[in-house]
């Protein structure tokens, strides 16, 4: 497997499922190797993606301009009301600030921005150099909070202090400061929080509607279409329903410990997992059997219309092969099932941030011969895609040009998407997108199909 010169330190992060092969654990949860071109980002990125959809807070990036510029309006996370999250704020630190410290600039920036935008809260992200120059962010935040009367929350997201996962945790830590500060009066006993759902292309609205139709109150979505007041009263919910487990499990655990709220892991991608996420919630409310009845009703109605509409795609796609490389491993599980339901097999599966249990489960799920990778890079991904003859790659922005260069279809399953892929309607959109990309006649000109170079 090392014919492409896989870096010495990376061999343990790749696994090919073969019968009789030693079942060594895949190495994961490690930092990216220096000099490898990782598809991962940094601590700041992790924090920024988690908190990004909170729409009535300002998000101020404390550091030089890059970190704020590259994260300006880049997610498809939509809001039903305020849209402060789509603005980019930076202290834009200059050389003199680096020498003399950025606290004054931070303070002044905050006071002015809060005065201008009247947000419900402010998140202050520290970037790489902030720790080095010794700015006391906590103190500035406390001072501004006192003076403005709104929560001003530091997010310790210095890029180099860990991996993207540590950024998730820093974001969750900031959210924990808010949770528990609102009134839980009038919250129904049959209530949940939706965690790890970012309302890309309105996905949280779709999911929320299903649960509400079942008679369940959704207290807060974290953080899709997020509102500070909703976050503050999230501790009043009876159950936490966690998608994107990588980013939000820590928060769920904290809430369990502090407020006794149990949590379950779900996924809203594909018919099977979508249905299960409704049933799994319904069984948590046995005192109201009508909830389960409603869940069954929803699933049966949705599937009744969805299933026939998928057959056209299935017919065309049966036998086609897919490669999956996405951020979280949980999403990979759902995608494997979703692809199978439209006749496709998976020849490569991987994630940026999966853990040991995730990879163990992935191994179990995958077919013989499937390659499993953790924290991969373009060279490796391409090698396996070509070797395994994939017709489709599912990934994010950085993977897209790899697929197109090699002449294979692509489905964007990342933060930027503009079409909802979650829920039953999302399954239809997903199948349609896969179909439109895989079946396009343009690939006939690709070198791998015999086109000239």
């Amino acid at each position, binding site marked *: 497997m090392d014919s492409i010169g896989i870096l010495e330190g990376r061999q343990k992060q790749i696994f090919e499922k073969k019968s009789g092969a030693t079942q060594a654990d895949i190495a994961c949860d490690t930092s990216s190797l220096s000099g490898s071109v990782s598809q991962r980002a940094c601590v700041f990125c992790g924090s920024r993606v988690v908190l990004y959809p909170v729409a009535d807070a300002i998000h101020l990036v404390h550091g030089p301009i890059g970190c704020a510029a590259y994260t*300006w309006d880049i997610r498809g996370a939509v809001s039903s009301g305020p849209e402060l999250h789509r603005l980019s704020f930076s202290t834009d630190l200059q050389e003199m600030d680096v020498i003399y410290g950025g606290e004054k600039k931070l303070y002044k920036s905050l006071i002015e921005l809060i005065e201008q935008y009247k947000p419900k809260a402010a998140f202050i992200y520290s970037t*790489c150099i902030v720790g080095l120059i010794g700015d006391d962010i906590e103190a500035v935040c406390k001072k501004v909070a006192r003076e403005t009367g709104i929560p001003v929350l530091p997010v310790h997201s210095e890029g180099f202090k860990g991996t993207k996962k540590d950024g998730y945790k820093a974001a969750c830590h900031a959210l924990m400061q808010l949770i528990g500060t609102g009134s839980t009066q009038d919250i129904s006993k049959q209530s949940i929080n939706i965690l790890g759902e970012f309302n890309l292309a309105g996905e949280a609205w779709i999911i929320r509607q299903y649960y509400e139709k079942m008679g369940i109150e959704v207290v807060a979505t974290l953080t899709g279409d997020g509102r500070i007041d909703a976050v503050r009263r999230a501790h009043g919910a009876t159950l936490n329903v966690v998608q994107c487990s990588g980013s939000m499990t820590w928060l769920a655990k904290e809430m369990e410990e502090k407020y006794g709220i149990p949590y379950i892991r779900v996924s809203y991608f594909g018919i099977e997992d979508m249905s299960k996420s409704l049933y799994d919630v319904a069984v948590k409310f046995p005192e109201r059997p009508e909830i389960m009845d409603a869940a069954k009703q929803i699933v049966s109605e949705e599937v009744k219309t969805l299933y026939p509409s998928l057959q056209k795609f299935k017919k065309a796609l049966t036998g086609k092969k897919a490669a999956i490389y996405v951020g979280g491993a949980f999403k990979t599980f759902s995608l494997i099932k979703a692809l199978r339901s439209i006749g496709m097999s998976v020849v490569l599966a991987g994630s940026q941030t999966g853990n040991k249990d995730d990879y163990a489960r992935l191994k179990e799920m995958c077919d013989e011969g499937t390659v499993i990778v953790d924290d991969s890079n373009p060279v490796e991904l391409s090698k396996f895609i070509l070797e395994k003859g994939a017709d489709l790659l599912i990934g994010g922005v950085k993977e897209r040009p790899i697929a197109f260069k090699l002449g294979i279809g692509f489905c964007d399953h990342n933060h930027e998407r503009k079409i909802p892929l979650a829920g039953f309607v999302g399954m239809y959109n997903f199948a349609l997108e896969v179909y439109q990309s895989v079946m396009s006649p343009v690939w006939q000109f690709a070198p791998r199909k015999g086109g000239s170079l």
Partner: protein
Amino acid sequence: MKHEHAKTATQNACKLCNPLGACLAFRGIENCVPFLHGSQGCATYIRRYLISHYKEPIDIASSNFHEESAVFGGSHNLKIGLKNVSEQYKPEVIGVATTCLSETIGDDVPGILREYRKEYKNGTPMPILIHASTPSYQGSHIDGFHAAVHATVKALAVKGTPQKLINLFPNMVSPADLRYLKEILGDFGVPYMMLPDYSQTMDGGPWGEYHRIPPGGTPASTIATAGGAMASIEFGSTIEASKSAAGYLDVMFGVPAYHLPLPIGIKGSDKFFSLLETLTGDRRAEKYEDERRRLVDAYADGHKYVFDKKVIIYGEEDLVIGMTAFLREIGMVPVLCATGGKSGLMKKRIGELVPDMDELGIKVREGVDFVDIEDEAKTVQPDFLIGNSKGYTMSRKNNIPLLRLGFPIHDRFGGQRMHHLGYRGTQELFDRIVNTVIEQRQNASSIGYTYM
């Protein structure tokens, strides 16, 4: 001056950070891997940002700083990273650019590179290592671009026997522009060294297999000859002297440096072609005369649509300056010329090209963000905006049309194939500008004319 909004923070920045420009420039050297000495995120964000414009894979390596590297220095990580990149990519050149992190902790990158060359001289392939200092807390992406070009020339160019060779430093322009420039130089029949040249690496064909490094770019061996060239042409009039590659070659090897604004518009393009004629002693090819004639003819055909139209133009300083000169020759008024950069030279340079700028009410502002531009728009009431995709937020909010050019184009297709330079680029820009006006008129008309 009273401002309507918070001034201390930068809101919706009209610039990017230093290392981005360096990565792009290093992409224009053959068989070169850009390498960022800093956190993983910098490389990933910059890759993502470039990919969304160029639609090409772009591998940028990173030394992946951890806490220990930040405390004890990044030397170890940088060396391991260089070794890994050398082994996996087998590059001829690695372009190392720093970040705010490695600059703040004060890593002595040139020193580390010297050590690396010594420590790893046996057994490992030893690429040429180029170092550009690009702290994100200084300047913007365009400074990083020039820093990388300058560092490359400094690292590679040697004193050679004088020869009929022209160095061209084209500035941060599109792959289509770069192809056009090569065509022009090729047609003059003069050997040239253009740096950078990402015309193929950032806008290439399909691949049969993954290329660790895409084909294309200026070979290091060609860059080495720059010291013996008969002249250097550098587009851009706001480049800091310490980052001017042409200036360096002039001082070090006595290669005469010619600084031109970006050749946009007839006058700007004339200057460029005349200079080439002077340097080579040859006339331009007839096809460029034809391009020019068609452009003059198009100006006549379209002049009424554009006369006295007010626009806001924003972007990198040199792009804004070149565009301003062009807009004036077709009778348009760039009521605001804006940039996120802070060279301190933009107003002076625009004044040189447009002497009556004050009477015309042309306002020049450096160091602005899009909220500043939006504030100005309320006063100057432009007919449309000209600049990159990032102006779309304010364009939509204020219902002012946006004509996209430059970098980044994230919300339209084909930004990498847009022309801006020379007669051909000017023609394309002029057509697009006229069509923007026509479309506006047609949409606003209650009659719905089918020809305008």
